[in-house]
């Protein structure tokens, strides 16, 4: 397990209150090793193709907020560069009442009790190996706390920037989100790679949505082409809470996302949406798991995948309805578009139901550009290349238009249009 040991070199034997849990997590990961193709969850994603660039020392690039997407659109932001808190790029000084945004490197020393539960879960034997590794090797990250009955006037940005400076090959950032009862949070989690970055990121996001709260979480993977990215999102929805967690994955050579949502109390609802584009040499794997633990809970899921050139995509969506979780509603759709003969997307919906009064539906498709639609657009005078671009754009649009944050919607559209392998229309700026 060369990769695991290469990662483990980043382990730091500090003596803070969480050190024993970090050691336990590392031991647990070592004992089990990294998953292989023989593990059902990892059937399509071969970690053997991963290697870790050797870390070297060097100056971090002189980044300014202007280099950061969305810095202007989010009044409050906390930024990490190569895994380390960057106060100069952050804006946490005078948060509005009810919001606390802190670096975990600080919280770890000031209030380790706030983190204990998470580290215990990650160090437990049944925890996913990358969760254990994240807890063992993490250096920094963000704790975002929203007090009860708070509505924030602007979205909060948590950005993890990989600078391309040869300082740190591996980072294990954490993002802890604690939303109080009846509060509302719009959160943008950005993983952004600067040109030339060759980082390996193993990120963990943990969202606790209090009763009656509403959380919109947008996670954007905009890593550099040579980066590798493993990420987990763990959501717990309290009574009558609503959490929307959207994964937008475009960057990196290998991306693997695990999204788990537990609907733990009556009335909780979750929407997991996603859009990924896998171009030449890219491999993007999403595994989602919606756990209906309580009755009267609702889930909706829409994932759209696009693969171009020899790009490879994977979607596996599991929905579990536990015994006694009656009157639940679950809807899942995975739609995928292949733009070339060499592209491949595997999709696998899984429903596991142990209650009898439920309403569940799922659908999965993998298709190509529709010839009939092409002819329709061409017959109207639209050139073949533009017609194809319009159809790809339309395909992605169904996920993009669900984003409530206008700056992100615009950015996604631009990003899609800027991909040479997914020829999107130059006419995009003319959207009426």
């Amino acid at each position: 397990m060369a990769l695991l040991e290469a990662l483990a070199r980043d382990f730091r034997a500090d003596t803070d209150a969480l050190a024993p849990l970090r050691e336990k997590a590392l031991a647990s990961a070592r004992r089990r090793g990294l998953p292989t193709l023989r593990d059902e969850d990892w059937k399509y994603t071969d970690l053997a193709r991963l290697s870790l660039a050797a870390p070297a020392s060097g100056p971090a690039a002189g980044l300014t907020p202007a280099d950061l997407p969305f810095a202007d659109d989010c009044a409050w932001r906390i930024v990490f560069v190569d895994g380390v808190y960057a106060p100069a790029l952050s804006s946490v000084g005078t948060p509005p009442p009810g919001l606390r945004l802190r670096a975990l490197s600080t919280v770890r020393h000031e209030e380790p009790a706030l983190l204990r539960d998470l580290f215990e879960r990650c160090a437990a034997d049944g925890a996913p190996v990358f969760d254990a590794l994240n807890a063992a090797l993490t250096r920094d990250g963000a704790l975002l706390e929203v007090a009860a009955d708070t509505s924030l006037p602007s979205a909060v940005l948590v950005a993890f920037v990989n600078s391309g400076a040869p300082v740190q090959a591996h980072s294990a950032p954490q993002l802890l989100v604690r939303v109080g009862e009846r509060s509302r949070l719009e959160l943008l989690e950005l993983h952004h790679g600067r040109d030339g970055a060759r980082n390996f990121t193993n990120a963990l996001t943990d969202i606790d949505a209090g009763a009656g709260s509403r959380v919109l979480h947008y996670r954007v993977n905009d890593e550099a082409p040579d980066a590798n990215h493993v990420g987990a999102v763990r959501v717990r929805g309290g009574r009558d809470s609503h959490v929307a967690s959207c994964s937008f994955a475009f960057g990196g050579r290998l991306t693997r996302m695990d999204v788990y949502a537990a609907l733990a109390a009556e009335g909780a609802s979750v929407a997991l949406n996603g859009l990924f584009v896998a171009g030449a040499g890219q491999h993007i794997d999403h595994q989602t798991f919606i756990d209906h633990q309580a009755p009267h809970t609702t889930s909706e899921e829409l994932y759209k995948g696009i693969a171009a050139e020899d790009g490879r995509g994977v979607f596996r969506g599991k929905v579990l309805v536990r015994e006694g979780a009656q009157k639940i509603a679950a809807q899942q759709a995975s739609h995928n578009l292949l733009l070339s003969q060499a592209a491949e997307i595997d999709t696998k919906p899984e429903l596991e139901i142990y209650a009898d009064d439920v309403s569940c539906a799922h659908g999965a498709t993998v298709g190509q550009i529709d010839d009939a639609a092409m002819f329709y657009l061409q017959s109207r005078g639209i050139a073949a290349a533009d017609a194809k671009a319009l159809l790809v754009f339309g395909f992605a649009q169904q996920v993009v238009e669900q984003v409530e944050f206008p700056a992100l919607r615009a950015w996604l559209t631009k990003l899609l249009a800027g991909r040479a392998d997914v020829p999107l229309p130059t006419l995009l700026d003319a959207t009426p």
Partner: protein
Amino acid sequence: MLKIENLHVEVEGKPILRGLNLELPQGEVHAIMGPNGSGKSTLAHVIAGKPGYTVTQGSVTFDGKDLLALEPEQRAGEGVFLAFQYPLEIPGVNNVYMLKAALNGIRKYRGLPEMDAVQFLSLVKAKTQVVGLKESLLNRPVNQGFSGGEKKRNEVFQMSVLEPRLAVLDETDSGLDIDALRIVAEGVNQLRAPERSFLVVTHYQRLLDYIVPDVVHVLAHGRIIKSGPRELALELEERGYDWLTKAAVA
């Protein structure tokens, strides 16, 4: 304007059109009638350039230009428009947005500058009134969630914005109740002009009560077997197709 000579067309090796001749002068409205399977839709599709048809013989020229050598979008650039029997739904692509791409595609083909957003929107507003399309449908994805009548009206609306010189209407009456039929036909009639020709493909003569043709052609077994004034349509309504098709085979 449109001249079709000895046109033979196959689909997957099966002959559909077998020596079709047709001449449609500028400014005239010609109806193509015929029984099911006679090749009516094939004719409409071949004129517009739909893939999947093999022309084995003959020619289709438009103002002397070889239409068959052009891509569908180039034919649109030349002024050909096909109103689909089953208009496609295009999820995620806004109706107006698609139409703007279409109009500017055609303008580019003709060497004209692109139309800007302001000009375009005022044009669109004016045209919705001409065909009676609900403005709320403009910003919806193309044809998605539209009723049958709304889809057909949207076809006529697109036609009114793109202003073709040859409009081919493929079974525009299919699936419409009498009210919807009347509205769609009125939209088409508003677009009748001395410089514009129409080829109206239909199975039933009732559409021709509203869009009155100059000439009616009967298509059977892949050929035009009879042409005549609009009264021919009424005769077909009364007597059916058998008396003609049997005579043609014999």
